[in-house]
C-alpha cells in the first residue's frame, strides 16, 4: 500500500501545489510510482503546474460519479514515466464528490502506487476535510509570514483530530538574507512554534516553477532544497536546506545587492 500524504496549509498561495508537484517529480525520478491527486475542486492548478491541462480527459468528478475508472482519469507525466496526475474539475462542483467517495478513490490509487500526494485546497472548509480524511500523513506548508504561520497552526490543530500518523512542516519562500539579519522568523523557530518536525526549507527563488529540479538552474538553492525535502520524506536523509549559507561571509554580504 502506498504512503498517502496530504499537502495542506490553511492559507492560500504559500506553495502547496508547487511543493506537491516538485516532491512528486523527485520521488518519481527515484523510480517510485507516484500519483498526484488534485483535491481542489473548482480552483484546481495541479494540471497547469505540470503542463498537462490539454491532456485531461476525465477528472476526479467523473471518477466519483462512475463515468470513468481511476486508471482512465490518470494522466501520465511526459517527462517522468512513473508519475501520474489525477486532475480535479474546473467547475464549482465540490459537492458532487463526497468524502467517502474521495477516500475510496485514494485507497484505490494507493494499491498501484508507492506514494499518493494529495494537493489540498486552501482554507479549512469541506474540500480540506475531504482531502485530509483520505490521508495518513500530512505535510503542512507555510511561509515565514505571521498570517501564514497562524493559519498553519489552526490547520495543524484540525489535522491532529484526524487519523494522521505523521506530520511535518515545510517552510517555503524563505529569504535567507532576511533570516541572517533577524528580520524574519527563522524556519527552525516556526517549526518549534507549530511543534512539528521541519521536513524542508525552500528558499525564495525566481527559478521555482514545476520541474525546478529538471531545469537549467539545477544548482539553484531551491532545486537542492527540494532534493533534501524528498530525501527527508523518503527516509533517506534528515537534513534541511540552509537558506542562510549563501548570504554569509564577504561574498554573502555582497549578494544582497
Amino acid at each position, binding site marked *: 500500500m502506498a504512503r498517502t500524504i496530504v499537502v495542506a496549509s490553511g492559507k492560500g498561495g504559500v506553495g502547496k501545489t508547487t511543493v506537491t508537484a516538485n516532491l512528486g517529480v523527485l520521488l518519481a525520478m527515484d523510480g517510485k510510482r507516484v500519483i498526484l491527486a488534485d483535491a481542489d475542486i473548482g480552483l484546481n492548478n495541479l494540471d497547469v503546474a505540470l503542463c498537462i491541462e490539454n491532456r485531461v480527459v476525465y477528472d476526479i468528478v467523473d471518477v466519483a460519479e462512475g463515468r470513468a475508472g481511476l486508471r482512465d482519469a490518470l494522466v501520465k507525466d511526459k517527462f517522468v514515466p512513473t508519475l501520474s496526475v489525477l486532475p480535479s474539475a474546473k467547475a464549482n462542483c465540490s459537492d458532487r464528490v463526497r468524502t467517502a467517495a474521495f477516500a475510496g478513490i485514494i485507497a484505490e490509487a494507493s494499491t498501484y502506487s508507492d506514494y499518493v500526494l494529495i494537493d489540498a485546497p486552501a482554507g479549512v472548509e469541506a474540500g480540506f476535510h475531504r482531502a485530509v480524511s483520505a490521508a495518513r500523513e500530512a505535510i503542512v506548508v507555510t511561509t515565514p509570514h*505571521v498570517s501564514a*504561520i*497562524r493559519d498553519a*497552526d*489552526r490547520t495543524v*490543530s484540525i489535522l491532529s483530530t484526524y487519523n494522521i500518523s505523521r506530520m511535518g512542516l515545510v517552510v517555503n519562500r524563505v529569504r535567507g538574507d*532576511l*533570516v541572517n*539579519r*533577524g*528580520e*524574519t*522568523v*527563522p524556519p527552525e*523557530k516556526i517549526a518549534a*512554534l507549530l511543534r512539528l518536525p521541519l521536513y524542508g526549507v525552500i528558499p525564495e527563488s525566481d527559478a521555482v516553477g514545476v520541474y525546478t529540479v529538471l531545469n537549467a538552474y539545477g544548482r539553484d538553492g531551491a532545486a537542492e532544497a527540494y532534493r533534501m525535502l524528498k530525501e527527508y520524506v523518503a527516509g533517506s536523509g534528515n537534513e534541511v536546506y540552509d537558506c542562510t549559507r549563501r548570504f554569509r561571509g564577504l561574498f554573502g554580504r555582497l549578494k544582497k545587492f
Partner: protein
Amino acid sequence: MTRRTGEDSYERLKQTMARDRALPEGFLTLIRKDLDTLFKAYFEYPEDALKTELTPWAGEGYTLKVTLSAPRAKQVKLL
C-alpha cells in the same frame, strides 16, 4: 526594518497563537462531568470531593490536575 522585526514577529505570533488556543467556556465543566461518571464507577464520594484544575495554554501545553478524596471504594468484580 531592524533586527528586532523577526523577534517582534515571533513574540506576536506566540501571543496570537495562545489567544487562538483559548478553550471555550464550559470545556472544564464537560471534562469534570465525564471524569465524575468514570470515577463514580469505582469510588463513592460527595459532590465536592472531585476537584479539577486546568491550566490554559501557556505555550507549553495544557495541564489538567485532578484530585479526588473518596472515603470508600466500590466492590469491583474482576472476571
